[in-house]
């Protein structure tokens, strides 16, 4: 487990949402935590370099802009890297995971309209040689709280 400073642990747990919408958001976070703006910037840069954070950014609910779907394929183990690389070429794909199951490749696509989404999926099927199952969102059940990270070393 990585060694994290108390400041980094606080940042990770308390700023997953409600990031300040002010000209100097990092300075405002620093003020709240009783440290300097540079302390916060350094702490975050280090978290970024150590791949502890993906980004400081926004999560957009699905289907607000454009059309999106979860999709899945069953791909033989020895083909999975080739197929995953083919899928990743598309800017419409933003998540792509291998899962331990016969249906083993799971990815999320977003496009500006249904026709375009359809074209991308058809292209993926043609290029890979495997059919794609589509699971568009019907309903998302929201959680209000951020995921609490237990950052003790156990």
């Amino acid at each position, binding site marked *: 487990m990585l060694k994290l400073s108390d400041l980094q642990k606080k940042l990770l747990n308390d700023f997953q949402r*409600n990031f300040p*919408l002010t000209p100097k958001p990092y300075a405002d976070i620093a003020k709240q935590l009783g440290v300097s703006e540079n302390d916060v910037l350094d702490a975050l840069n280090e978290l970024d370099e150590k791949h502890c*954070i993906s*980004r400081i950014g926004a999560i957009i609910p699905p289907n607000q802009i454009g059309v999106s779907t979860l999709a899945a394929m069953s791909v033989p183990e020895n083909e999975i890297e080739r197929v995953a690389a083919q899928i990743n070429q598309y800017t419409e794909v933003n998540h*792509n*995971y291998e899962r331990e199951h016969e249906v083993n490749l799971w990815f999320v696509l977003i496009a500006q309209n249904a026709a375009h989404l359809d074209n991308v999926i058809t292209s993926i099927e043609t290029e890979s040689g495997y059919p794609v199952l589509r699971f568009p969102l019907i309903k*998302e059940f929201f959680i209000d709280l951020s995921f609490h990270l237990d950052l003790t070393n156990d």
Partner: protein
Amino acid sequence: MIDHKDALLLTQIAKGLPICSHPYAVIGERIGLSESEVIKRITHLQKMGMIKRLGIIVKHATLGYRANAMIVWRIPEADIDFVAQEMLKLSFVTLCYQRPMRPEWPYNLYCMIHGKNKTKVNAQLAQLIEDCNLREVEKQILFSSRCFKQRGAVYTTT
């Protein structure tokens, strides 16, 4: 409705804010908006429900959460809302979605558990089954083994 600038802005903030003194000014410069205009538009987009959350997006795996299971369930249509709300009472359930059943994949409720290791996730799943009374429900458990891509979506308008 949102305009072209809003779509550009959403793509930028989905990709991530720079770690510097004036991140909104930097983003504004890229898409031709002033800092105050960027802040005003994001505030408005939030009010419209176009932004679920703005903040640090953690990489669970690096932070010791190495196991991630997606569990899919076959729940009678009428019970879905109730079961989902029960699931979300458990702090280790991080996502919960309803999706259509397919003949090849007859499951309609998806939930995600992030945990430190497989043993812990399996114990949490056992608790979930007990607490939500899901012993008799058909399910599939899918642990993730590799991440090929994880990034913010790219939004476009025509």
